[in-house]
């Protein structure tokens, strides 16, 4: 990490936070519909992981707006997708949960819990066969690490020593069910230990996430096969906007919010990287401007033509 990179990560974290609040506001106004899973509270994890794993293929979950933007997808294209507009990154056909941009090696946006993990395994197999330099990173939550797709994937990735980084975002909630009630232990890395090397990190600290992903990437490059990284995070909002978050106590929430990754990383920038208040204000302003522009763009973007309904069912006409 260096100062410039730290500032870039901070920019995307602020962008992410403000973007998610803007998405929520527009959901309340009826501009965004369907399911909307906000990443508020987990920005350090989402941004630092993407910035550390800067090349290679990404397979993510339905809580992926911030990751997509950190990967280089324009906030305008993401917000327009949330609005269901033709200029959206998926042409308005995917929505919040299905952001795809193969030119950025970003493959969703998968709304079947754990469903993207076998896809990442297959892609890692392809990369190994092709002798590619960059591997694959798959992001999933602690809810997915109780499912069959996850265990099958550990087994296959380890058998073939695939260049695959399993990144588990452990926020302790599978939708609304606490991990104590769905798994025998909190640390999901224990499930991966028989198959591969595992690393754990405080997912609320961007610099720690960054360094850990870099370390995992190095291990993969050195031929250790797949690596499992577990990041402990805290989701500030409900599972989706329609979840009132009633299953978590006020005390738990205040404990959670005391770990705000933006507050922590801002302190890092000021103290470790000697950024000035003015520098940070400029970054914050720039991020807010990008969000404002994204919302304005999405509002003015066009409704898909109804003819688009039958476009892209298949590649080839017969």
């Amino acid at each position: 990490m260096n100062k410039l990179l730290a500032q870039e990560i901070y920019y995307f974290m602020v962008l992410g936070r403000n973007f998610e609040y803007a998405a929520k506001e527009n959901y309340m106004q009826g501009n965004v519909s369907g399911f909307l899973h906000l990443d508020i509270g987990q920005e350090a994890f989402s941004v630092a992981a993407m910035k550390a794993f800067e090349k290679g293929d990404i397979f993510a979950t339905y809580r992926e707006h911030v990751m997509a933007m950190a990967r280089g997808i324009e906030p305008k294209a993401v917000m327009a997708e949330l609005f269901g507009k033709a200029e959206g990154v998926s042409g308005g056909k995917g929505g919040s949960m299905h952001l795809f941009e193969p030119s950025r090696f970003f493959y969703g946006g998968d709304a079947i819990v754990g469903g993207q993990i076998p896809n990442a395994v297959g892609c890692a197999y392809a990369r190994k066969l092709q002798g590619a330099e960059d591997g694959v990173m798959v992001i999933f939550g602690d809810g997915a690490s109780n499912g069959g797709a996850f265990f099958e994937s550990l087994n296959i990735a380890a058998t073939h020593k695939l260049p695959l980084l399993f990144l588990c975002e452990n926020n302790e909630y599978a939708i609304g069910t606490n991990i104590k009630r769905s798994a025998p232990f909190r640390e999901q890395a224990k499930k991966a230990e028989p198959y591969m090397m595992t690393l754990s990190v405080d997912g609320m600290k961007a610099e720690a996430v960054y360094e850990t992903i870099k370390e995992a990437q190095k291990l993969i490059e050195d031929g250790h096969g797949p690596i499992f990284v577990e990041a402990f995070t805290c989701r500030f909002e409900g599972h989706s906007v329609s979840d009132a978050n009633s299953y978590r106590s006020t005390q738990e929430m205040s404990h959670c919010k005391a770990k705000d990754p933006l507050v922590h990383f801002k302190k890092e920038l000021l103290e470790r990287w000697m950024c000035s208040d003015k520098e940070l204000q400029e970054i914050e302003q720039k991020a807010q401007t990008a969000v404002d522009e994204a919302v304005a763009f999405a509002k003015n973007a066009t409704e898909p033509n109804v003819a688009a309904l039958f476009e892209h069912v298949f590649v080839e006409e017969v």
Partner: protein
Amino acid sequence: MLYREALNKALDEVMAIDDTVVTLGEDVGLYGGSFRVTEGLVEKYGEERVIDTPIAELSIVGNAVGMAIGGLRPVAEIMTGNFSLLAFDQIINHMAKLHYMSNGKVILPMVVRFPQGVSKQLAAQHSESYEQMLCSVPGLRVLSVCDVNYAYHALKYAILSNDPFVFIEHELLYNKKGEVNFEEQLDPFKARIVKEGEDITIISYLKMVDDVMQSVPAIESALNCSCEVIDLCSLNPIDYETLAASIKKTSRLVMVEEDHKTGGFGSQVVAWAAEEMFYELDAAPLRLAGADVSIPYNRTLELASIPTPDSIAQEIIAWGRKNDV
């Protein structure tokens, strides 16, 4: 050439010209495939391209999807149709949807080979047919293979296409003999007229086409008529044009299939005929299909659960007499 040899040759030829083609599945490598379709390929192309997988169907299809995203052309083999149910999340939610959900950005050139159907006393969990479910999912091309020549050409086409294909084979056809015309430019989406006739159009697919052909002499002699037999070949899309031309000629329609009658694939064909061909028909269509029961082990009960050449002949003759054929 045998049906399984035609499939093997198609795979072999495509693997030889395109090194992005890989095949994966349970026992496809060293064992040579449960139906010997992949025999000899691992020796030629190595274990990296002929991949023995764990018995984990969700991953077989799920990994194939990821391989296709990563620039390969995977041909996944499901050992038998019933096992595919463990992979249906990947088939429906991923294989069929990623291209559309991404507005065309993600392309999945892949094939899932799908042996299925009533074989011989394999009982309820190894005998079922799933084309009705697969064909109700937009985004999947679904081909069904009865003919040896079609097997060769259609498999090559599916592997080299940029769309996701489910390629349905029938477990009792692997040792069927036939000729392959290697020079032919075959359109895999066109129905095959197996036998021309004037009075009854009999539509079928997979092994039932052969059973229908066995029943035809008895039907033609009893009713003093001639039957036109059509093999659908492609189940998605359906070649309605060929079906319509035949029905216009014969004015009578029989649909024969092996899967369960309720919600079976043939209901789509007959529903189409009711909507589009009603005034061309001189009689209500006849549907012959499997009974609405799980397939039993006992041979007598097993044969009673699906159409056979004898039962097809009997039912069509009775229907023909009632309808003045």
